[in-house]
């Protein structure tokens, strides 16, 4: 049993933690509606929607937004297959080769983003490839595919190799086993990997900054706006991004719960005993 005092301490702690976590977001969001030239809620000058209107009128922002989404989609398209394949390969290896390959895949996660950015730039420069969003994509993929690999690798631990043998024994070829048995088992992890890849790409700044060439992405756009004198349009942009993320997370959760209920309902159709 938790004693009364320790429950009070626990509640205070949770409250403090949530305030610490959420207060900056609330203040930042509030500032997006304050009719003040500076991004703050105090002093409160009055309600306004002009920062949002400013933002929507900003063609440079729209361009950066489009670039960000393009890069994120490209990163998903490249890093998901690479990460999945690497996970399957690493999982099938043993001993030293496995350790080496695993280390090589995971190393970019531990490497600072700026280093990845600069080395991507230098590497392709060597082959006279100009910088641009394609290099940003490649640079990001080098560490994002490792995230995908880690997720898929974790899921592979729960895969019963016996199923693979059973399928082979029933006449399946290796590619049929992959398509019909292994990949369906991995789909949840692959889906999660795709989502993480997408968001990792959107929020990437360091790697992109060095490789982007003349192109803007959202993070770079925010960065340059902040440098040239900050206005509450940035707050408006941030608020929209938070809202979109929250909506996505909530709708996924609703979908997941519904799906679970369906499964439960199906499971309740009692297996008649022998």
């Amino acid at each position, binding site marked *: 049993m938790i004693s009364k005092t320790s429950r009070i301490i626990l509640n205070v702690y949770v409250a403090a933690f949530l305030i610490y976590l959420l207060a900056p977001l609330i203040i930042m969001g509030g500032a997006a509606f304050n009719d003040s030239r500076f991004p703050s809620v105090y002093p409160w000058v009055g309600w306004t929607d002009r920062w949002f209107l400013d933002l929507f009128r900003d063609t440079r922002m729209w361009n950066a937004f489009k670039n960000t989404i393009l890069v994120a989609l490209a990163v998903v398209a490249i890093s998901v297959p690479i990460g999945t394949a690497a996970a399957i390969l690493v999982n099938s290896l043993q001993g030293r080769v496995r350790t080496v390959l695993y280390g090589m895949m995971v190393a970019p996660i531990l490497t600072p983003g700026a280093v990845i950015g600069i080395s991507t730039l230098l590497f392709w420069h060597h082959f006279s490839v100009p910088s641009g969003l394609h290099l940003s994509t490649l640079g990001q993929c080098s560490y994002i595919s490792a995230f995908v690999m880690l997720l898929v690798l974790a899921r592979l631990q729960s895969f019963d190799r016996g199923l693979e043998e059973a*399928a082979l024994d*029933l006449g399946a070829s290796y590619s049929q086993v992959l398509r019909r048995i292994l990949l369906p088992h991995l789909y949840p992890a692959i889906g999660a990997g795709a989502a993480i890849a997408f968001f990792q790409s959107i929020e990437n700044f360091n790697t992109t900054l060095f490789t982007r060439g003349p192109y803007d992405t959202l993070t770079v756009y925010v960065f340059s706006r902040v440098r040239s004198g900050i206005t509450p349009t940035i707050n408006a942009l941030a608020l929209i991004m938070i809202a979109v993320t929250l909506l996505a997370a909530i709708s996924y959760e609703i979908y997941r719960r519904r799906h679970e209920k369906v499964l439960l309902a199906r499971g309740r159709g009692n*297996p008649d005993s022998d």
Partner: protein
Amino acid sequence: MSATVELDRVSADFGSFRAVDKVSVTIGAGEFFSFLGPSGCGKTTILRMVSGFIAPSEGHIRIGGEDMDGIRPNKRPTVLIFQNLALFPLMPVWENVSFSLEMRGVDKAARRARAEELLKIVDLPGAGNKMISQLSGGQKQRVAIARALAVEPKVMLLDEPLSALDLKLRQHMRAELRAIQKRTNVTFIYITHDQGEALAMSDRVAVMSQGRLQQVAKPEDIYNNPSNGFVASFVGENNVFDGRIIASQTTTARFETDLGVFEAAFNTPPSSDQKLRLYVRPEYARLVSTAPEASNAIAVTISDISFEGNFINIHATTDQGRVLTVETRNDGSSDIPETGSRRYFTFDAQRARILADETQAAHS
């Protein structure tokens, strides 16, 4: 359809460990053949070699006369029912059952229809749309069998498929498996560590120990005429006496133990230095109140009577403190002695056997 399966001095090595040692046996087409042996004796390894998941380190496997060397599992006319069944959890029952047809590119309607037919054969009609997780143990068993039958295999390999079921269901499935085998006439190779299963279902049984075949024979011969001490004690119970032969005729010998000298059947000439023991099954032993004039009698005191339902186990202690067991049927025909009463433990020479511990590995 069925095919013969021929193991020709097949061995399997894992590093320096020999899991299967020069096993030779020919299994007839349409036969229900069992490998019986304790856990770890190499049964699964044999099945995995026949199905093609591991290659023998020496020897040959022929199915229907054809050498299987280098032929992959998906190209062999065999299908394996795994110890844990290995049903596909993400597919409904009917897709599981018709998986092999899907792999061959059969269209969906035909697969569905065939799955329904096979589910009828295994007595699970209408279960096609269920998920595997919704099935009971016995139902999963049947789905695994239906999935294997869909391949129309010539040889079906079963790796202790009943070990996860409870006793009642296990006995029911024994009869069921046997019936399916007779109906389909597929060659069944069945492995188990359960002697009751092997004896009840099989046309022939191979008893194994530590990678070696000990005896291949019909169930009744395995039980009645075990070829060595391992087979005798693995299949059924025994009273075992250490000792040595002091005189031998053609089919019997006199055997000296520290409880006396006994006469017992003896036909395998022992290889020079093999340890010999005398084996008397509890149901072949009797308890009598007066010492029989022939030999084969040991004075005992009844120490415990355990009632097992259809039979009764009587434990009797010799004056030296050895506990012997006699089994009698619970049919009212035999009188059951009181605990503490004095009796003589006796047996017929023809029903007792002098056996070497293990058959020496056949060399050459």
